């Protein structure tokens, strides 16, 4: 037997509970109204934050009377989940706790209809609920007298027709009036609002600040088009008082130490296409400068799903993840975001999707590994060439010091075997194999010369005789070694804490104290000079980096 539900069975409090839970951040309301604009096909959206109000205006198709009437419903939406970003029928209430009144002006693109104003008196709604709660606490209100949801909404929502002159433009204008002071403080900081929107809204890439902007937009658009999916982008202008700026995705060249072409990868299962990922790798073996931008962010129809850190786990270890900036643009119509946009709704499709993300991650990891192995190879080869040149230059100074000469041979062999090993493992990029060959020959030749010097010295019978002086004999070989461009000097660590901080390892005050102690007792104590101390710190840093990479 089915149960009959009366209007009193759905209490008005549900609206407060739902909106508080789904939209914990006041900026979520901005996202929700921007999302409505995107669903209305807007190309341009403006957000204006002022002393007592926030305005979000779009140039979308607007809403007529019927659509506005339906918009007040909760949990029922006219939108199509496979096309539209918002479809749960709750977003319109996202500012319930943020402002006293929500006014929605809308003019439908069909100019024959008049503009309308849909008004929500949230202040009165909250007052009614507050009074009810206080009466219940006092025990002066019985449960059958509680306000039901329908009554609350009917009492506090109005829809009226406007003269064309009051709102002439096609589109929708959302006004949040009478801002709650506590929320307003965080919303009046331009940077905070901008950085939130840059992450969650489908903005264009910044063509003037990000070298790959155009390439990524074009490529992702092309892949989506090919797959009959849409990659929608909007122009968003943010105004906080008099500061007005057009917002773009937050990616800039400054995040990288050089340029390397973005890598695109379709995210797909055996028969299913979920979307496309793009990723830009930091060419140097370093993390992306800004922590908040490291890794990949999942986006559905341009709106962020969860946070970057959530994707990290699919990369196994975060070493390479942190060296990428990227996005996973999901276009599969059946992957639906949950109401809080923290993930997709649980489904078997979601499981398969994350499996595809794992495969995608392997691909990005391999690419990073391959590329950065080459980069490491470049660095080692350059270091080895520099070292050999230096040893060559010092040969004549130490001609009378066999101990020094032996040390030099040890050094040559160490560098020789390092480069040879890399060549055997194919971890010297093909373009530099020639340099590596030249290095090996020069190193061999130098070793032979030094060996001869040692031999001559140990016989002690005859004075050293050369057909040519060593430097002249070797000169031709050394000249063939490639010129190594001096690498940009990395900031020298001043102490152990700086080493750990530069590696972005978690740190707290307690750990700092421990590190200071280790630094003083062991590292400083084992170094005879400041140079040696810094050298030891650098070595330690490289070792920790290698260790982290191997994790």
């Amino acid at each position, binding site marked *: 037997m089915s149960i009959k539900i009366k209007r009193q069975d759905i209490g008005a409090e549900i609206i407060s509970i739902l909106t508080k839970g789904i939209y914990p951040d006041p900026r979520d309301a901005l996202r929700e109204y921007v999302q409505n604009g995107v669903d209305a096909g807007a190309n341009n959206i*403006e957000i*204006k934050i*002022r*002393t*007592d*109000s926030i*305005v979000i205006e779009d140039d979308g198709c607007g809403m007529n009377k019927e659509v506005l009437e339906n918009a007040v419903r909760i949990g029922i939406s006219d939108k199509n989940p496979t096309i539209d970003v918002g479809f749960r029928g709750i977003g319109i209430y996202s500012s319930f706790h943020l402002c006293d009144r929500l006014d929605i*002006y809308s003019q439908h693109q069909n100019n024959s209809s008049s503009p309308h104003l849909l008004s929500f008196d949230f202040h009165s709604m909250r007052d009614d609920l507050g009074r009810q709660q206080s009466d219940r606490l006092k025990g002066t209100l019985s449960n059958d007298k509680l306000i039901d949801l329908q009554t609350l909404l009917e009492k506090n929502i109005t829809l009226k027709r406007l003269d064309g*002159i*009051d*709102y*002439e*433009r096609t589109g929708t*204008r959302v*006004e949040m009036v009478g801002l709650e002071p506590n929320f307003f*403080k965080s919303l*009046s900081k331009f940077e905070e609002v901008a950085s939130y929107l840059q992450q969650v809204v489908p903005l264009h890439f910044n063509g003037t600040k990000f070298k790959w902007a155009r390439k990524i937009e074009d490529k992702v658009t092309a892949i989506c088009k090919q797959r009959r999916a849409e990659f929608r982008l909007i122009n968003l202008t943010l*105004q906080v*008082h*008099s*500061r*007005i700026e057009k917002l773009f995705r937050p990616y800039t060249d400054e995040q990288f130490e050089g340029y390397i072409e973005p890598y695109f990868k379709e995210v797909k299962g055996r028969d299913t296409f979920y979307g496309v990922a793009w990723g830009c790798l930091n060419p140097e073996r370093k993390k992306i400068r800004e922590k908040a931008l490291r890794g990949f962010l999942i986006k559905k129809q341009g709106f962020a799903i969860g946070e970057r850190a959530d994707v990290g786990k699919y990369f196994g270890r975060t070493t390479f993840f942190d060296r990428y900036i990227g996005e996973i643009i999901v276009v599969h119509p059946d992957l639906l975001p949950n109401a809080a946009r923290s993930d997709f709704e649980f489904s078997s499709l979601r499981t398969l999707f994350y499996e595809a993300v794992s495969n995608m991650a392997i691909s990005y990891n391999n690419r990073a590994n391959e590329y950065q192995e080459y980069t490491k190879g470049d660095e080692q080869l350059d270091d080895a060439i520099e070292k050999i040149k230096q040893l060559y230059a010092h040969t004549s100074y130490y001609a009378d010091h066999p101990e020094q000469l032996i040390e030099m041979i040890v050094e040559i062999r160490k560098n020789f075997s390092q480069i040879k090993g890399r060549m055997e493992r194919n971890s010297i990029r093909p373009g530099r194999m020639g340099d590596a060959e030249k290095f090996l020959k020069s190193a061999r030749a130098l070793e032979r010369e030094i060996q001869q010097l040692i031999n001559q010295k140990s016989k002690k019978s005859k004075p050293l005789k050369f057909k040519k002086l060593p430097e002249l004999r070797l000169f031709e070989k050394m000249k063939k070694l490639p010129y190594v461009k001096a690498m940009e000097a990395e900031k020298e660590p001043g102490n152990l804490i700086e080493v750990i901080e530069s590696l972005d390892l978690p740190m707290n005050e307690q750990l700092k104290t421990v590190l200071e102690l280790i630094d003083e007792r062991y590292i400083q104590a084992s170094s005879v000079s400041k140079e040696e101390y810094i050298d030891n710190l650098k070595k330690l840093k490289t070792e920790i980096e290698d260790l982290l990479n191997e994790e």
Partner: protein
Amino acid sequence: MGEFVDNPSKKVIRLDWCKGLISYIHTFLKYRFLYLGLPGIALYDIEAWSEYIDQIIAFQCRDYPRPSSISQSPKKVAEMEESLKALERKGLIKTFSLYDGYIEEVLLRGRDIAGNIFSQNDVVTIYNLDFCNNLTAALPVSDDKGTAQYVYKSHAIKKLLEIQRDITSSTRPKKFIMFLTVHASYREKEMEIFQKQPESKYLLDYFKRIQRLSREEKQIRLLKAYILDIIRRYFAHCNFSCHLLPAIYYEGAGGHTLVTFTIAGAIDTNNTIRTYHKQKPYEFLRTPFLTVKKQKLELYFSPSVEDLPIESLDPVAMIKDSEHFTRLW
């Protein structure tokens, strides 16, 4: 400020004087303007000039003439915001920003009393500074570091020009019109020093010439000379050259006598070290006042102090003929 009520004379100035000038400048510069000023809740000026204005930066105090306090009701500020939003909804302006407090305190503190940071995102083309109250006392203001000082309305002008000078992000040329309205009885401390110790011969001569006039006639001429002096100094300090059109002396709301000054400003790119004003000070001092009678602009009967003829009462013709305009605009 704030309590300002529209009256017929104001309307004549707004429509027959300012609007013509703004319209011409608009045709000349070919873009819609950024307006900064104290429009008052009724927004008469804005509505009259809206076809030339894109963006508004407005100031509204809470409880005139008392010093601002967070404990005062922000009702008037909210009303002003509502009025501006109505214009925005109608599509008459593109956007606006509103600061809660007196202009001089907002500019000095760098934020309004609600804590909003003041910023100017582009070159202002129209300044409309209606200091039309009879406030003569300086406003006590503490900046963010807690330094307390008394500020006069004139300090706001200096600060605004400094901000205008420092704007770098715009492609708009630094050319603008400033309408400055002050109460005829306006006095401030620096004005007294100015009167007692004139720094130039022409001022000394001018003060001698106005000595024999009635108290009120003398006061408006003293005000005229003082405003000329601070405008020239402040503009030059910020590398702007200025040109003043005839001052308009008239009766405003509540029987208050007001003087409206019209100043054209432009950056002098030819002289980067020192700015020279093309207009000679005595040219402005010897130009007669205008006034509003029977809802028309006319020459103010001048007791022989001002002897330079005015051929036309059209501000466009006046500005077009000026050396400042022909050389710098």
